[in-house]
């Protein structure tokens, strides 16, 4: 079997009496989209926070690209190649779309301690950033401040920044949220191709997108993974149907 890119073993995180993550074990294999679904309050966000390093688990291990990343902080995990997007877009709002992506490019190049060279005239930053904006379809919006982009465009910009990091895995937290049907469709196509670059752990409420994209689905309920399997297995799983899917399946 191929070594998983991301492997989470027996992760536990409790807030007081509430076990938000209750012995979760999941993995992300090369080339796949692994969707994480579950009702509101199931602990999806808490899990994402632990993977990214903003919340420390009480116990359990997180291995990424063959090493234990439990002791690393957010910035160090990003440097290892963990690219993420946020449930609510998280950008530098005053900067243009281009300069946002350039921030990621410069971080990837590993040097943020240049003091004298203007970035907007630095081809090694502008060119790759522009190429990525073109890829996500934002080239004509490159000079607009991130704050002035539409909701959907901000989501695309987040993905552009994750791309610029040349991540080894993508952690996408509800990328479809707030997108219109047209935008969702376009993004679905985009993510479908993206998995060839790096595997995607996809947290998503949009079941059409999940069923269209996912190679595997894990269902999280009350902090526990109640099922993991292919789309068909999950659709026909009676426990999942009662717990979450209802009339979706």
């Amino acid at each position: 079997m191929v070594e998983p890119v991301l492997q989470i073993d027996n992760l536990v995180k409790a807030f007081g009496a509430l076990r938000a993550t209750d012995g979760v074990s999941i993995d992300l294999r090369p080339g796949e989209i692994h969707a994480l679904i579950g009702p509101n309050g199931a602990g999806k966000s808490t899990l994402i926070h632990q993977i990214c390093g903003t919340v420390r688990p009480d116990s359990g291990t997180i291995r990424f690209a063959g090493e234990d990343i439990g002791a690393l902080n957010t910035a160090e995990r990003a440097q290892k190649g963990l690219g993420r997007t946020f449930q609510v877009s998280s950008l530098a709002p005053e900067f243009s779309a281009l300069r946002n992506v350039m921030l990621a490019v410069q971080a990837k190049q590993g040097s943020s301690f240049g003091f004298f060279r203007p970035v907007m005239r630095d081809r090694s930053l502008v060119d790759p950033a522009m190429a990525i904006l073109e890829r996500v379809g934002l080239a004509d919006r490159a000079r607009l401040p991130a704050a002035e982009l539409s909701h959907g465009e901000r989501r695309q910009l987040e993905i552009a920044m994750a791309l610029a990091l040349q991540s080894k895995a993508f952690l996408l937290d509800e990328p479809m949220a707030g997108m219109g049907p047209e935008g969702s469709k376009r993004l679905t196509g985009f993510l479908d191709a993206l998995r060839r670059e790096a595997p995607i752990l996809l947290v998503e409420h949009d079941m059409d997108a999940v069923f269209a994209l996912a190679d595997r689905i894990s269902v999280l309920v009350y902090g526990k993974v109640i099922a993991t399997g292919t789309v068909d297995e999950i659709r026909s799983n009676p426990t999942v149907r009662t717990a979450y899917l209802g009339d979706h399946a």
Partner: protein
Amino acid sequence: MLTRENTVNLVLALLLLVAPLAANAFGQPFYVTLATRIAILALAALGLNLALGLGGLVSFGHAAFFGIGGYAAGILSSHALSYEPMIFGLPGTVQMPVIWIVAVIAAGLVALAIGAISLRTSGVYFIMITLAFAQMVYYFAISWPAYGGEDGLSILVRNQFPGLNTMKPLSFFLVCYVVLLAGIGLFALIRASRFGTALQAARQNETRVATVGIHPYRIRLTGFVISAMITALAGALYADLNRFVSPSMLSWHMSGELIVLIILGGTGRLFGPVAGAALYVAFEFALGGLTERWQFFLGLILLGVVLFARGGLLGLLAGKAKHG
């Protein structure tokens, strides 16, 4: 091509140069000194603007660095004039370039220590902890009798700059003006650089910066240290302007004044500190002649700026700030 902001900046820079030149030509050295005060306060605020405007770090303790710069000038020159060696038998000096280097290094080291601790906090806690550190430096200066304690330290003859007679108001003004322009140039370079990008991004969205793999703490600490160094340079010049340095340069009033200058002029703007300092000194001069309570009226203006003109004077004149 000149943008509106660049035009405003150019006019401000020329005004600050032409006014004292004219005053000098008409035999009014007092106005030259006033312009010198504007240039020096602008430089001090420019330093703070790097931390506050670009980095979003509201330091309420920059008087510490301003005062350290001032004391560097006072202490070095007092040793030079008395021929008493300092610690390690090092001699004093009356040469400004040497004094500036000492001032900048000393303040940089103190800022490294203060910043390393303070930057573990944020928001109101950061404001309070920087204030607390600055007050420690203030009380240290008061209780240290060797250099005048509470009474301060006089600089009998203004320190020297090679090739100039710094006792002439215009010559000293020109020194300060050129240093200010160099500071503005440095600020502009840093703002447009990779480091400046990361520093400003950390203000706008810390999580975002960490998520691309940049440590916000390291970026901020570096920014804080550079900021303190520039303010210290201004402090050394300020001591030479007054030919006197006292703990009042270190007091929290001074820290507050620097913040006020930035808010008046326009937070994060290249020429905000210049506009703010000019406005402040002009006010102090015009209203200070009429009433001792001129700061009451300054308070009203500040209130007006905060309520109705958030971009400060630069915001009014040049419109909203533009980023790349």
